[in-house]
């Protein structure tokens, strides 16, 4: 395995730079799980891990075309009343303004962003479409 992974811890969260390989997703999820457990946020563990997975898969698969030479940046910031997650990639981005609100449950694809919108209060893409920001309001975070 040649995949790379670098974590930098900040006072309210951490940033991980990873090569665009699926093998890195589990390691990022472990870091997120540890952080949420440390702040007694087990109630949202499933939904946050699920959305982290979706955002990372999108960045690796669609943003970087699973090119291990490219990098994905994951950022988690746990503020007093909200959780903010950002996932950016080195890809060209996509035209998020054309996102269709697919609701047909029989289709086999296009469900990742819908999942993120289901579990987070806000899902915003940057202008270029190569970074997504997820925000979730969380009352009573332990440690604040």
């Amino acid at each position: 395995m040649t995949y790379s992974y670098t974590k930098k811890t900040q006072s309210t969260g951490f940033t991980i730079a990873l090569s665009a390989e699926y093998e890195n997703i589990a390691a990022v999820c472990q870091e997120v799980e540890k952080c949420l457990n440390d702040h007694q946020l087990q109630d949202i563990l499933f939904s946050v891990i699920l959305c982290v997975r979706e955002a990372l898969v999108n960045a690796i698969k669609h943003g970087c075309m699973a090119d291990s030479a490219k990098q994905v940046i994951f950022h988690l910031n746990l503020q007093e009343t909200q959780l903010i997650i950002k996932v950016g990639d080195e890809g060209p981005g996509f035209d998020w303004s054309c996102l269709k609100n697919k609701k047909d449950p029989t289709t086999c694809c296009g469900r990742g962003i819908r999942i993120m919108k289901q579990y987070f209060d806000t899902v915003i893409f940057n202008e270029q479409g190569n970074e997504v920001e997820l925000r979730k309001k969380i009352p009573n975070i332990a440690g604040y």
Partner: protein
Amino acid sequence: MSEVSREGEKAIVKPDQNIVVPLAKDFKGELKELLHDGITHLIINMEDVNMIDSEGLSVLIAAQNSLQKLGTSLELFNVSENIRKLLQNMRLDKRFIIQDS
């Protein structure tokens, strides 16, 4: 890899890990092989599955679409509360037969 119990055209499949990228692709291959092999009644034991992502959901939907052509439906059992809610949120809970554990 999944544990597979077969009885005629019926198969019970028990994945031993979460159905997520990149593992979901292998699981898809396993189900596809069973369907090509004449299985018309497919049941998935979700006991060891704590997480399923959009790719994993796509695998279940693809299997259901194939079974629907044969006049049957995919059955799931031992589904965790979190995954049950996810299926509801994605309006997929009516697409499959979800047995009470």
